[in-house]
């Protein structure tokens, strides 16, 4: 059985590549059994953090602890972690069964134990009947499942996943997403999952760690991140496509009034704002809807059918482009009014767009 743990702690971990800092001091603590997503745009340091955890990259500062044991000085083969790579990284000359058995073979387990555990892992990923094929004979989704089986068969203390779904097509990605969460629930492992796709992170994770420029920007549950990103760059990344620089009025508690193209909107302060200072206002297109009485007036530009509604863009009188939704198709040039609940209008300090 794998040794278990209560808490994984990253303490001020740093990683430089020459003059470039990929990680600038990251702190994080993970409880046993959690599913953590590291989310951020490419180059934010999320993959570097994962490679440091795996031991594939040495740290240049800080330390990593499993309860009382310091692990960042261990060689990768001594950490006992499982990893699922973006491009699967299966051994192309070994059968599915040999691939899955690799970790146990290296541990010099008895043949009978290896057989039993490999069978169980193949059952979990539903690939028992493909076990004698070579990886090259499998589809992308099946290869990904072999990679998962290879990672979980050693009953690792930690499962690391590096954008495991990014090489799959849209339909398969949805299916494998459910599959990964199902396996996580089934084996009760602790999982660290790297992705740049906010939908994936929202749907899979217990907690999301948003990273940017080698630093952690926000840690929270999917619901917290979706409804209340703490910074405007996190908001941008979480799908708040309307980001408008403007001046704020006087705040009363967390309520404030902002002016966009002459229209006054009630809003919620997320980052402290001085009265009259420059702010960034963030609104999701899905929250900004056509409403005859709405305060904002725009001229429609495009209108795209999405099934139940239309995703539209339009320009305000001062030229700001806004994205919004409409229940009916709008003609280009059509003037409409928009409204948004004050709870869904978030205000951040600083006027520059991220």
């Amino acid at each position, binding site marked *: 059985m794998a040794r278990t743990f209560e808490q994984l702690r990253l303490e001020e971990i740093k990683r430089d590549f020459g003059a470039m800092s990929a990680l600038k001091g990251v702190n994080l603590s993970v409880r046993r059994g959690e599913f953590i997503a590291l989310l951020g745009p490419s180059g934010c340091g999320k993959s570097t953090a994962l490679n440091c955890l*795996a*031991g*594939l990259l040495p740290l240049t500062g800080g330390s990593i602890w499993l309860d009382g044991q310091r692990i960042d000085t261990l*060689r*990768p*083969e001594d*950490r006992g*972690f*499982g*990893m699922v*790579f973006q*491009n699967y*990284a*299966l*051994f*192309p*000359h070994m059968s599915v069964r040999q691939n899955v058995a*690799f*970790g146990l073979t*290296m*541990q010099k387990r008895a043949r009978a134990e290896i057989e039993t555990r490999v069978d169980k892992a193949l059952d979990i990923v539903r690939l028992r009947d493909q076990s004698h094929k070579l990886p090259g004979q499998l589809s992308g989704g099946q290869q990904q499942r072999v990679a998962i089986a*290879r990672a979980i068969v*050693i009953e690792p203390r930690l499962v690391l996943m590096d954008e495991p779904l990014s090489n799959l097509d849209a339909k398969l990605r949805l299916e494998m997403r459910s599959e990964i969460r199902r396996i996580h629930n089934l084996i009760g492992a602790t999982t660290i999952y790297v992705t740049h796709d906010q939908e994936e992170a929202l749907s899979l994770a217990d907690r999301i760690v948003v990273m940017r420029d080698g630093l952690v920007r926000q840690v929270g549950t999917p619901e917290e991140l979706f409804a209340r990103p703490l910074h405007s760059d996190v908001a941008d990344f979480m799908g708040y496509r309307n980001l408008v620089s403007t001046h704020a009025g006087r705040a009363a508690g967390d309520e404030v009034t902002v002016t966009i193209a002459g229209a006054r909107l009630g809003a919620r302060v997320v980052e402290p704002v001085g009265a009259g200072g420059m702010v960034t206002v963030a609104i999701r297109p899905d929250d900004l809807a056509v409403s005859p009485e709405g305060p904002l007036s725009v001229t429609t530009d495009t209108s795209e059918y999405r099934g139940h509604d239309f995703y539209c863009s339009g320009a305000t009188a001062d030229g700001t482009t806004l994205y919004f939704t409409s229940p009916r198709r709008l003609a280009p040039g059509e003037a409409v009014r928009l409204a948004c609940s004050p709870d869904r209008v978030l205000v951040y300090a600083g006027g520059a767009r991220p």
Partner: protein
Amino acid sequence: MFAERALGTRTPSELIWSVALWTVMGLFVANFMLMILAVLVNSFATQWFGTWLPPAFTTKWYVSAWREFQLDQVLVVTMMVVGAVVVISGLIGVPAAYALARRNFPGKRFVLLLLLLPLMVPPITYGIPLATVLYEARLAGNIWGVILANLVPTVPFVVLVMIPFIEQIDPRIEQAARLFGAGTGQLFVRVLVPLLAPGILAALLLVLVRTIAMFELTFFTAGPSSQTLVVALYYAVYAPGVRANQSIDAMSIIYMATTLLWLMIALRFVNPVQLVGRPR
């Protein structure tokens, strides 16, 4: 003969050009094959002058060539030289290629250029000074001298052939092996060598063919008891004394058959186009 063309039907000028091209290529290939066929027929002919086929066939030229040039000893020497060259260049070349493929360091491109030199510079250029050095070190004139001289082009050849094979192995596969518990030894035995096997095989078979065919270096460094087949063939052609040309043709055929046999084996493992070049 042609598969379907995607861009509509062909114009007459294209058709003429195409026919001309295939005719030239066909003549070229046919001429080359006929030439070899003539040698082959001649080597089995009792006599052959001005007729379509010789009046009678015999294997006596093979027997006489075999005796006259002591081909049994020559073949043994050839095998020993070639075997030693193949093994040694594999043992030095593959690890060196791994080091060059997986590490980046300043001057890597320069090292690659240096390795290319003995391959591209014709052996006749450096064969004479190399033989001089080896004679002074008392290493020439025997089989070791021949082997050492032949290693000069073959080791760089193995290195350069292996580099793309090694670069083709995803480093993530090595990382995965590490992560799932393989140390350096296990990594090589279980992952790298099986994955590189086709490349190693191809490189060494090509070294084998090249070494059988390497005339200049062997010629300069071989003594009377360390001649290989290609040198013996040369002496057969140019040594003083009158010989039936059938005897020489017989030796040519023995030599060509030896080379072709190995070449065909090598081609099972390597695509011909890939042996010659590829764009950047």
